[in-house]
């Protein structure tokens, strides 16, 4: 996983609540057996509408998604995270994320940032007024910054120390757990013998 320290880029405002993972990446894309090549499936149905914000020429190359509340509900498909990353997003901002989606994103290095809806509204207003406005998501300082003058937004966000450290270092979770393999083996000795097994090995 690539380390995430701070990222600056232009944004796409997605003014919809309850965006479920079936919209982020429709089921027929889930047949792929790789982690790449999902960019064309991202919001596939909505992108057919020429008026959809993703189709505005000024939004091309954006890397920050500013989404409505309850982003990523529904299916646990991690393909939703891959699709956002394949498309070029480094970070998603919303006032509320669905749990599994948020877990998947932070595992995979897509930084999901929770800000109050009122701050999200101000970011929407900024980028809608000028698509060239850049948003900085600074994981070191746990802060989002955008715009200048009266409309400028500076907002601190919360993320737990452990997740932040993992993202800053770009550490793989499995490698971290395997450092404690002796604990796992010790735990296994204590499991009751009657617990089910799927096969004898």
């Amino acid at each position: 996983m690539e380390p995430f320290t701070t990222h600056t880029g232009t944004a796409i405002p997605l003014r919809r609540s309850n965006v479920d993972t079936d919209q982020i990446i429709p089921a027929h894309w889930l047949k792929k057996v790789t982690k790449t090549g999902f960019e064309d499936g991202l919001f596939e149905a909505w992108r057919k509408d020429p008026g959809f914000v993703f189709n505005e020429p000024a939004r091309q190359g954006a890397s920050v998604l500013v989404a409505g509340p309850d982003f990523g509900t529904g299916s646990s498909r991690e393909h939703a995270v891959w699709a956002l990353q394949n498309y070029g997003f480094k970070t998603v901002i919303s006032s509320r994320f669905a749990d599994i989606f948020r877990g998947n994103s932070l595992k995979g290095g897509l930084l999901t940032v929770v800000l109050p809806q009122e701050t999200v509204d101000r970011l929407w207003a900024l980028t809608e007024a000028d698509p060239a406005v850049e948003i900085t998501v600074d994981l070191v300082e746990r802060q989002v910054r955008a715009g200048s003058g009266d409309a400028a937004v500076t907002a601190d966000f919360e993320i737990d120390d452990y997740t932040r450290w993992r993202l800053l270092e770009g550490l793989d979770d499995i490698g971290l757990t395997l450092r404690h393999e002796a604990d796992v083996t010790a735990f296994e000795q204590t499991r009751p013998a009657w617990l089910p097994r799927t096969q004898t090995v």
Partner: protein
Amino acid sequence: MGRTLAEKVWDAHVVRRAEGEPDLLYIDLHLLHEVTSPQAFDGLRQAGRPVRRTDLTIATEDHNTPTLDIDKPIADPVSRVQLETLRRNAAEFGVRIHSLGDVEQGVVHVVGPQLGLTQPGMTVVCGDSHTSTHGAFGALAFGIGTSQVEHVLATQTLPMAPFKTMAVTVNGELPAGVTAKDLILAVIAKIGTGGGQGYVIEYRGEAVRNLSMEGRMTVCNMSIEAGARAGMIAPDQTTFAYLKGRDHAPEGADWDSAVEYWTSLRTDDDAVFDHEVVIEASELTPFVTWGTNPGQGAPLSASVPDPASYGDPSERSAAEKALEYMGLTAGQPLRDIKVDTVFIGSCTNGRMEDLRAVADILRGRKIADGVRMLVVPGSVRVSLEAVSEGLDKVFTEAGAEWRYAGCSMCLGMNPDQLAPGERSASTSNRNFEGRQGKGGRTHLVSPQVAAATAVLGHLAAPSDLTDVPVPAGV
């Protein structure tokens, strides 16, 4: 202070606890299917890691499998590759697999419980959000993403952030004709699709205690539709009776030790939940959804709501968008909504009790002209049992199609899909835009409502059927 059921199960699985880090939890059962596992096995291969506990891992094929012509090669080459990839990975890593054509094949959340692999007090995970189904046994069961699938394959553990606890207590008895599905749809409409975020919900109260294991699975299955991490019901005699004698249930002295432990798995009287919701069962009625998320539901006797009646602007705009997509107008009675398709199946309502309930309504009746009805058992075992009771005949004589087991039209990854603009009454769990096929419109309903709807051609409850069914054999 006492602990809740969820906290007891969690505490019993902590492998490692360290200040400032998530708890490392041991996983007792890992279920796999073809959609969310290929990239995980690939990761293992690249890192040269084995599957740590093949004896706690099991795979089944369900999402892509066809429900017709299962003896012929799968027509869609991409679906075929995904199934073949799972078979190859299972063989290479030594994982038990139940492939298409196998008697134990079926939807992953139907297969685990019927094999007796899902037991009280266990931790169960699967790369699938409806893993919450297994909570019906008093297991802590949650859906995970593909990176976590790889993590569990490699280590049999997961680092997990702490959760909050919610009690949903349903007092009293469910009125006749009101099912587990109606109960959970009403819960979701009450707390909202995000209301359960960060919580493990424990369902309690007389109405929950009186549910069968199958009904409990229906309730826990849809916990994720309220945004919850997991749903749970404390194990009791109903649970033990269901498990006794199943393939992987403990036997003899082991059974006694297991029951003794299982009996301790209940929320202590002095335990405190972070949030409590109370529902009176007597107020529940058959429930249907009118919108494009499972929280957009209402009693069948109600009308399509007016978006203007929502105070919250984001809910209002969500309702406007939903009505547009669903092709509905505010104020239209829900009973007037005509459907072209009825789908019976899925891990929510694809078990024996569901099929029996549908058959009881269809027996001696015909489905309405122009309605297509698919009955898809949740597993091959369910299918065989239904055939042994003659239910398949009841379905086909009524004009429905009796299919092979799988996820089918629950998400339309196989050929069973809605065409654009088609409308279904579906016993599945998600009414998202395009979920059952591009442009398809879904109303989530109970099996009983689905069956009555098939007969009348519009959303309806069994009590709307005023005809007298022709007795069998006449």
